[in-house]
């Protein structure tokens, strides 16, 4: 028992959101009599939510920088219709359509970013304007019609990894993907541990690290095997999503621009006086958001085989909810890409499970609304208790996780009191 505790040890709380997700999956697995973890359903969840998660990646950066983007659904719809028309009427090939869509998204982003960053209009206003404008533009361009897209294009929304190689009863490429993922996890863990030892930080016992690593690998590989055992392979939108999570996770945590986004959101004036070009940061996060919205729009159009006048309605709110469930702060400066993805997955699993159980859209909406409130309330309660918030936990890198358990001496009495004074003084 004690040993199990140690494996999760300090991480049990740190991975609170992941555990909540796991609990939710198990709960629905039981309630739906095993439907949730059917390969087809897992594929369905990934395909049906990848575009929202793509938006969440962009949205978390926007929210970390202290802004909001309400226009993503409309921008997605606008780009979707233009791309669909370009392929149907102007003879643009499918890859040309994708490039055109991304270029259009970037252009929209430049437009919105300009007003936010260089004119100084609050993003709420600029993107509310965009929300209205691009919804109208979608219906203007498409004359409120539905425009189909060619099958080659549909791959980015509905495609799956094809069957190749010998018949094993599994989708070979998906199994391979699982193996690659595990190799990556093992490599990352070992490298991280070696670095910790190199800089002389305290590391946890080896077997804890390795057991945790093994558990993660089992879960990841198990999920891939599950999907591979179904009729189809791993979905293409899922691959796009994984690539984006890796890319943006890297940017947010390991690059200068990533640091600068957090700095601007945390304290813009301090950031500027430390040499951060905050206008440029604001411009980039807003522009990037529209770029990702364009991608999300195209993925959705590809999945539903056509672009319509009501694509993307309410997406901005789903993406924002995912980000806040994932632990970002309304006031900016806090949040992680991976946290937002998990937040988005919690919503997705909830949505899917309730649908499988036959709950109507009305009930689903009500429950999702409450989940958002409870998740954020839990986070705030944790903070007021002096425990790290969920997002704070994700923010920590491997090093602090390693030394968290026992190496850290108690904070000085003085700072502790000051902190308590602050939190409690405010409440009374």
């Amino acid at each position, binding site marked *: 028992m004690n040993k199990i505790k140690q494996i999760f040890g300090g991480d049990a709380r740190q991975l609170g959101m992941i555990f909540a997700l796991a609990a939710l999956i198990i709960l629905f697995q039981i309630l739906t009599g095993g439907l949730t973890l059917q390969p087809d359903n897992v594929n369905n969840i990934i395909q049906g939510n990848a575009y929202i998660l793509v938006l969440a990646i962009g949205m978390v950066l926007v929210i970390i920088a202290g802004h909001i983007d309400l226009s993503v659904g409309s921008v997605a719809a606008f780009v979707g219709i233009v791309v669909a028309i370009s392929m149907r009427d102007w003879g643009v090939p499918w890859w040309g359509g994708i490039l055109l869509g991304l270029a259009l998204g970037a252009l929209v982003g430049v437009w919105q970013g300009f007003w936010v960053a260089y004119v100084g209009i609050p993003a709420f206003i600029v993107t509310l304007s965009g929300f209205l404008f691009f919804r109208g533009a979608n219906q203007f361009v498409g004359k409120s019609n539905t425009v189909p897209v060619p099958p080659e294009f549909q791959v980015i929304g509905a495609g799956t990894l094809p069957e190749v190689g010998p018949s094993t009863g599994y989708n070979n490429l998906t199994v391979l993907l699982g193996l690659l993922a595990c190799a990556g996890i093992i490599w990352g863990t070992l490298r991280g541990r070696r670095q910790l030892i190199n800089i002389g930080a305290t590391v946890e016992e080896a077997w804890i690290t390795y057991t945790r690593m093994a558990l993660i690998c089992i879960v990841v590989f198990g999920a891939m095997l599950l999907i591979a055992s179904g009729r189809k392979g791993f979905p293409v939108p899922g691959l796009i999503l994984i690539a984006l999570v890796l890319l943006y996770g890297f940017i947010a945590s390991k690059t*200068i621009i990533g640091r600068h986004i957090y700095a601007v959101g*945390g304290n813009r004036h301090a950031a500027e006086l430390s*040499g951060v070009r905050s206008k440029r940061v604001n411009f980039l996060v807003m522009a990037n958001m529209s770029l990702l919205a364009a991608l999300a729009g195209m993925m959705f159009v590809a999945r539903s085989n056509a672009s319509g006048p009501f694509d993307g309605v309410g997406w901005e709110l789903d993406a924002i909810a995912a980000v806040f469930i994932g632990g970002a702060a309304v006031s900016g400066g806090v949040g992680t890409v991976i946290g937002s993805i998990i937040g988005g997955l919690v919503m997705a699993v909830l949505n899917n499970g309730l649908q499988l159980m036959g709950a109507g859209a009305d009930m689903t909406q009500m429950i999702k609304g409450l989940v958002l409130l409870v998740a954020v309330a839990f986070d705030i309660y944790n903070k007021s208790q002096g425990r790290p918030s969920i997002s704070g936990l994700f923010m920590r890198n491997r090093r*602090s996780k390693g030394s968290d358990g026992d190496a850290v*001496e108690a904070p000085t009495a003085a700072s502790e*009191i*000051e902190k308590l004074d602050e939190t409690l003084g405010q409440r009374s």
Partner: protein
Amino acid sequence: MSTDSSLQDNVSSPGPEEGDIPAGQVILEMRDISKEFPGVKALSNVTMTVQRGEIHAICGENGAGKSTLMKVLSGVWPAGTYDGEIHFNGRLVEFNNIRDSEHAGIVIIHQELALIPELSIGENIFLGNEVTHGGVINWMTTRKRASELLARVGLNENPDTKIKDIGVGKQQLVEIAKALSKDVKLLILDEPTSALNEGDSQHLLGLMAGLRSRGVTCIMISHKLNEIEQISDSITIIRDGKSIETLRVKEDGVDENRIIRGMVGRDIESRFPDHVPEIGEKLFEVKDWTVRHPNVADRLVCKSESFFVRRGEIVGFAGLMGAGRTELMRSIFGQSYGIFVSGTLLKDGQELHLKSVPAAIDAGLAYVTEDRKTLGLNLLDDIKRTTVSAKLKRITHGLVVDEREEYKYAEEYRKSMRTKAPTVDEGVSKLSGGNQQKVVLAKWLFTEPDLLILDEPTRGIDVGAKFEIYGIVQRMAAEGKGVILVSSELPELLGLSDRIYTICEGAITGVLDKGHADQESLMRLMTKTSSRSDVPTQASA
């Protein structure tokens, strides 16, 4: 290091006026107050007795428990959450919240003023305590009573003026007027002068003396020992959550050194570390620097100012608040304030064109801002990320910020500056003011600057940390960097600087060598709205 209150002729000179008041009667007694937070004993058996009609100072280093004690007294920590007894006006009192204590006549004015900027003075004074008639606010009476209260605190402002339109010194007076409106018997002021300039501070202290003569008892928490020595009748010293002693200022002949000894539990022989300057070549020079106000087109915030800094030299800048010191420094630091009009910057004889903060940092300038929390730190960050934040390039290889180097450098600075934190993973918001300031300094030293501009580097931090920061500043100078020290505390300027410029209303009014400067000469130059022609030239260039 004694202050000279005669510097401010226009202000009624404060000072103990014993005899005017029925002294000797105890208004407040706190007995054996103990307060525990999970894992920390913030106060243990603190005992304090305050006489009616006196000004009673509480001294202690940051984190000693002063604020906690006042929170116990004012009911922020309700009865039952602490041990011990509070006797007020001869009765045992148990407050459950701030309203209770205010009802009894105890009003606390916090360091961060609790005024609403967009509301008028009158509205603020009666906020939460509105003058109503049948549920409707009676504005006529509100204005009339507000005017009366403003007259009592000597503030000549229209009660309809918005709070945001008056300076912080006047805001402090509004807070006091607000306290008076509640029929205050015991007024608690937490760091009342920390944000005020010398003139406003003196006015406030004068006002406190006036209140004392009218029978209002004051408790004052302050780090400014000269003010405490100047105005208070008795002093309770708190160290590590324990009440160490209560001193009677007159009877015990208390001076600053005596207070410091009580606060730190030992003598600090010198408040400024020994330092023999080794002054070298001219490092940095500013010529005819003129800058316009960012919003007001025809207003100049820097009027053709010229100065220089040599290697190894600590150059002080003295000026009253609003004199344009910060504006000057920030305009030099990559034009981060105001609109550049004309002037040249030279470093090692080469002209610099610094149009942005990154350019200034690359050119070897560093600017430690005056307001740590709003301008210096991202309070969401931890020590290591803060330390490297002003020059991430230095530890970035390819695209990747090297977290091992980040940890290494942060750890080096933590050790060399003796920042009190368990690890560099600690959030900066959890550090005390002094340690936060060390992190900010580390952040700028990490940029490897040649010229370090420090704007009020020791504001609001305790004596021990101040001493350490002085040491760091002198070390920087000894390494051959140039240091500019902007400070409102004249003793600090006099103790550290090799040369001091004075600024008044956006223009340099004088420069004094260390040997020629004292508080009076500085104050004279700081308050002189002179033309350029009569700049004194005692300093040898």
